[in-house]
């Protein structure tokens, strides 16, 4: 008999509770009730509601990054296909979890400590992209003309905001179409031509 299942049950329940009520509005007992565990058991695993919230975000970030195939490419064509796959995964994840994404941002806006903790928390997708794009720049496959950290922030920012605005509209975004638009934007911004070479 191991304890971690209870911990994971709390995290899983917290995604729904935080998304419905927001960080500020959610109570610890809302989470334990949803998870079907005793109220006191919460404190076996977490010190605070905010601690649980950060765990929710960290698992979500890890979950996305885990789906991203890790690879080093011998040519730009492989790199291009990988980029498209990363965009597709990110668009799907953001469209599916649009309400959760809004909740996380609202929490960060409403609580400086949470915002700071989120900024300092490792983001595996950002790290992977920074690594890959740095290598591609050395290979001459891309030439964005700005620092690697800036371009990675820009690509993620563009994707998050675009999907969020699509989801706010009346129609759900078509995954393939959205992926095509965002991938096109990424490759243009990185200055990578359709055949993989630099413009």
């Amino acid at each position, binding site marked *: 008999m191991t304890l971690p299942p209870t911990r994971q049950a709390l995290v899983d329940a917290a995604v729904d509770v935080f998304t419905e009520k927001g960080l500020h509005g959610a109570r610890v007992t809302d989470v334990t009730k949803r998870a079907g565990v005793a109220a006191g058991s919460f404190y076996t695993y977490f010190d605070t509601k905010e601690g649980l919230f950060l765990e929710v975000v960290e698992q979500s970030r890890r979950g996305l990054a885990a789906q991203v195939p890790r690879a080093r490419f011998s040519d730009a064509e492989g790199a291009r296909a990988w980029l498209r796959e990363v965009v597709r995964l990110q668009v799907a994840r953001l469209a599916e979890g649009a309400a959760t994404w809004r909740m996380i941002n609202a929490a960060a806006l409403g609580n400086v400590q949470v915002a700071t903790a989120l*900024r300092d928390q490792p983001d595996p997708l950002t790290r992977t992209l920074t690594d890959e794009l740095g290598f591609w720049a050395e290979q001459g496959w891309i030439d964005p003309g700005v620092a690697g950290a800036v371009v990675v922030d820009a690509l993620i*920012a*563009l994707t998050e905001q675009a999907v969020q605005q699509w989801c706010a509209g009346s129609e759900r975004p078509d995954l393939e179409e959205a992926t095509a638009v965002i991938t096109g934007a990424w490759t243009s911004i990185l200055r990578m031509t359709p055949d993989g070479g630099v413009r």
Partner: protein
Amino acid sequence: MTTERTPQTTQAHRTRGALLRAGRRVLERKGLHKTRVSDITKEAGVAAGTFYLHFENKDDLFRQLLITVEDEVYGELVPSRSGGSVDPAHRIRETNLLYLSSFKRNAGFWKSVEAAALGQPDLPDVLAERNRYYRSRTERAIARWQAAGEVSPDVDPATAAFVLGAMTERLAYIWYVFGHREDVDAAADDLTRLWLNYLGIG
């Protein structure tokens, strides 16, 4: 949609300005959702009924605030100085610098706007309306540059305006609400480079 009931006297103009400034202070302090019209009139030191001589409701005041803040950027650009086409790289950098400078100066306001947009499902109407307006300006500018042969014919102006607008808005939040990027000039250089890459210029 915008009220045109504003009386055209100096005193009325002053009262309207006082209500806008008070509305902004209350909004940044309490958030749009919790702000009541009576909080605004109290803050401005005017009678409760006065509010409705100038604005239809809270959302109308909010819309006017958005226009005022946005005009810091676009007001500067409105006069077509040369009357004709301006070099895209120059114009894009100028717009980005004004946008980021204004965003940084008004970061507290934009923070409360974003909080309201995230927390209030019916609010985005006001914001979406402003977004569409500015996006259509960008779209027309890109189409003009395209017609002049300065932007690649492969670029779709509407998609470009959407994508670049989304990137710019979110980066501004990352740099000035969630973070503290001090160098607005360097930030404008970076942002402009990304726009030009997308548009296939330079």
